Structure formats: C-alpha cells, structure tokens
C-alpha cells in the first residue's frame, strides 16, 4: 500500500500541475477567442461576420484533429517554448492549445445565453463595448462559464492521461510504465481510481460553485 502511495502521489501531483496550468492557459487563449466570436457575429456588437467565419473554421478544424495526433504535432512546439518535449512542463503546451478552441466554444455559448435585452439596456445607458463585455456579458454568464470551465478541466484530465502515455508524465505515464509495461495491475487500478476521483471532485465542485453564484 505504502509503495502504491509512494508511486501514485508524485504522479498525481504532476497531473494536478498539468491540469491546472493547462486549464489556466487554455482559458487565457480560448476566452478572448470566444468573446471575439460573440462580438463579431452578424448583428453583434462588432459586426464582422467574415472574421467570425474564419475564426469559427479554424476552431472547428483544430477541434476535429484527434488529441493524440495534436500532441504529436505540438510537442516540437514545446521544445521551443519550454525547452523540452518530455515531462509535465512539455505537456502543458499541447494540452493548453488543444483545449483552447474548446474553451472558445464554451465561452461563446455561455455568453450567447445572455438575454439580448440586457445588452440593449446597457447600450442605452451609454456602456461601451468593453464595458458590456466585462460588466455585463462575463458577469451575467458567470455560472455558465464556471460550468464550461469545469467541463474543460474534466476534458483536460482525460487528455493529460493521454499526454502522459507519450512522455508527458503524470498519472497516465505511471499507468503505462508500471501498470502496462510491468504488469502491475494494482498500480493500474490505483491510477484509474485516482483519475475517477479527480474528475468526480472537479465536476462536483464546479456544479456547486455554479449553483452558488447563480441568482437568476
């Protein structure tokens, strides 16, 4: 038991590291993209349907590439950005980029939920586009955004295990090295349990927070 904990704990921490950083960076990349999608759609606040179509197409293409292939394509980029293409730091790059288009869509659909009338009222009160984005759209959509980010995290947990398989470190890496290559079924089971728990806790916390802040 002690041995299992000794093996699983560091891998688990690596997974947490990858998941948190990748979620953070995917939001930083994806959220502005999602906001841009909402603003530039036809009759949006910045009516630029052509740009909207271009962005939408790029997002769709990125999202349709299977994740494993995306990682292989992007690991070289990790070498440029973090100086290595193996380990948990290296995995953050493809994970963030792979999740960013997903975040963009999540943000887009959360913002589109907001009643147009509320935006109109803000316009009628003299709000600028910036003020509408930050003080109306993002604020009103917060519960939906929290749920969307939760979904992103759950996805990234799954992706991170896959990234582990091809040299990314973390729980997935442990599962391959011990569970698969050394036939340690107990470790394999432990990794699955840890992942299931992590997903469960993430989803439950997300649901709880979203419900707590929803005043509609």
């Amino acid at each position: 038991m002690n041995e299992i904990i000794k093996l699983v704990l560091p891998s688990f921490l690596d997974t947490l590291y990858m998941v948190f950083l990748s979620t953070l960076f995917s939001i930083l990349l994806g959220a502005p993209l999602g906001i841009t999608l909402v603003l530039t759609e036809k009759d949006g606040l910045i009516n630029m349907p052509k740009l909207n179509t271009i962005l939408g197409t790029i997002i769709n293409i990125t999202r349709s590439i299977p994740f494993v292939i995306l990682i292989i394509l992007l690991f070289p980029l990790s070498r440029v950005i973090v100086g290595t293409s193996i380990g948990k730091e290296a995995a953050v790059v493809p994970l963030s980029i792979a999740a960013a288009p997903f975040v963009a869509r999540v943000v887009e659909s959360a913002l589109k939920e907001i009643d147009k009338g509320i935006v109109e009222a803000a316009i009628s009160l003299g709000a600028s586009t910036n003020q509408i984005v930050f003080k109306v759209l993002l604020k009103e959509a917060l519960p939906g955004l929290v749920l969307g980010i939760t979904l992103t995290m759950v996805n990234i947990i799954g992706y991170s295990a896959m990234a582990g398989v091809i040299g990314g470190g973390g729980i997935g890496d442990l599962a391959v090295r011990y569970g698969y290559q050394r036939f340690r079924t107990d470790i394999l089971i432990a990794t699955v349990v840890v992942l299931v728990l992590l997903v469960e806790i993430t989803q439950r916390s997300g649901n709880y927070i979203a419900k707590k802040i929803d005043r509609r």
Partner: protein
Amino acid sequence: MIQINNLRKSYLVNGTKVEAVKGISFNVEKGQIFGVIGKSGAGKSSLLRCLNLLEIPDEGEILIEGRDITKLNPKELRNIRKEVSMIFQHFNLLKNSTVFKNVAFPLEIAGYKKDEIDSRVLELIDLVGLKDKKDEYPANLSGGQKQRVAIARALANNPKILLCDEATSALDPLTTKQILDLILELNRKLGLTVVLITHEMDVVDRICTHVAVMEKGEIVEIGIKDDVFKNPKSKTLKQFLQSERGSKVIVLEKKKDKAI
C-alpha cells in the same frame, strides 16, 4: 427638445425591405409626456428605438436640444445616451446583480467614485420606493418592483428624457397605475420629458399630455391628448376609444366598490 424630421427606418427581412417608419416628423417639448399609440406592428418600437439610436435610422434627423444625434461619433453617442434613458417592457435588469448594483451600473460605467455612487444609488432607490429591497436580486422582486429598479437605473445619470417601450405592458392594472404614477411624479418633480409607446389606451389617457397615433409606419393623428381624444379621426383611434369605453365602465364600477 426633441425634433424628428423625416425619420425613416426599414429592416431587411429575408432580402425584402420592410418599412417600419415611413418618413415621420414631429416635435416633443420639454416637460411633455408624449404618448405614441398604435396597433401591433405599426412601428412604435422602431420609432422609439431610433431616439437613442438603438436602431440606426435609414434617413432623417433626430435633434435633441438642437444636436442631430444621427451625426455623432461613438463617444458622443454614448454621452448623449446618458441624457436619453430608456426603460423596457421586460425590465432588462442584470440578473446576477442586486438592486443596488443594478442602479449603480450606469454610474460605474460613467466613472464616478465609489462614495459618490453609494449615496446617489441610495437616493435613487429611495426615490422609487425600494429602500428595503436594495440587497435583493431581481429574481426575488415582483414585476412592478423590477420596473422601479429599471426606472431608478435609468434616472441615475440625470437624464433629460425618458423613453418607455411598453413599460407597463407586462404588469397588472394596479401595478401599471403605480408605475404610471411614479413616472408622472418624476415628470413633475424632475421636469423629465417622457416619450412612451403603448398599445394600451388607458396608459395614454392617464398620464400623457400629448399623443400621436401610428398606423403602418406613419403618424395619422397628433396633438394635445384631450383635443385628439375628443375628436378622433383615424380608424385606429376610433377603435381604441371604443374598446376603451367598455373598460372605463369596469374601472368606474371598481371605483364604486372601493368607495363602499
């Protein structure tokens, strides 16, 4: 105060042009409560929403205190919108913000300091009679209370003009009366000029000083309310007055009940 010259507004619906406002001209003077009535689809909302450029007119001028607002740059337009406020049929409050925060919103975006905002918001909430509700969220308010919040919010930047788009159409008769009384009080107390659109005769009858009747994108009758109502010319107004007479009887009977 407001001069509207040859205002036109159309929409493109599936490639065909729908003319909602067909070259309308009229003036609204300071302190008037100007009602526009007409049937559904007559173009009332389109007309009203041009007055703060929520809709961009195809043609025509809208002069507010002599300035043509159709020719302003975006920044000037945002500033003029602080002088021409609007309230809506469905209130359009920020659902994840308290009453206080909703009323503070226009002040925050105008860049006031926090203590200035706090005192002004409390003053406004008091003005609309919602002192004890300041920390409630809109979901916990009645329709009338929501509209009071919207009115407080609309008044935050001391507008000269209040536009009301069917502001009482989602409210029951008693609440409608209370909101109209509030608008009347604000008109008298603050000298607020009001332009309201409605398809309820009762609303115009109760508070308007002037009235215009719209039919298919055009104004068919306009003038001092009492004069226009005494001598209706358009088909729309005749019909409206007829159905109004029916409801008047009911109102009178209700009043009698109360007297007893």
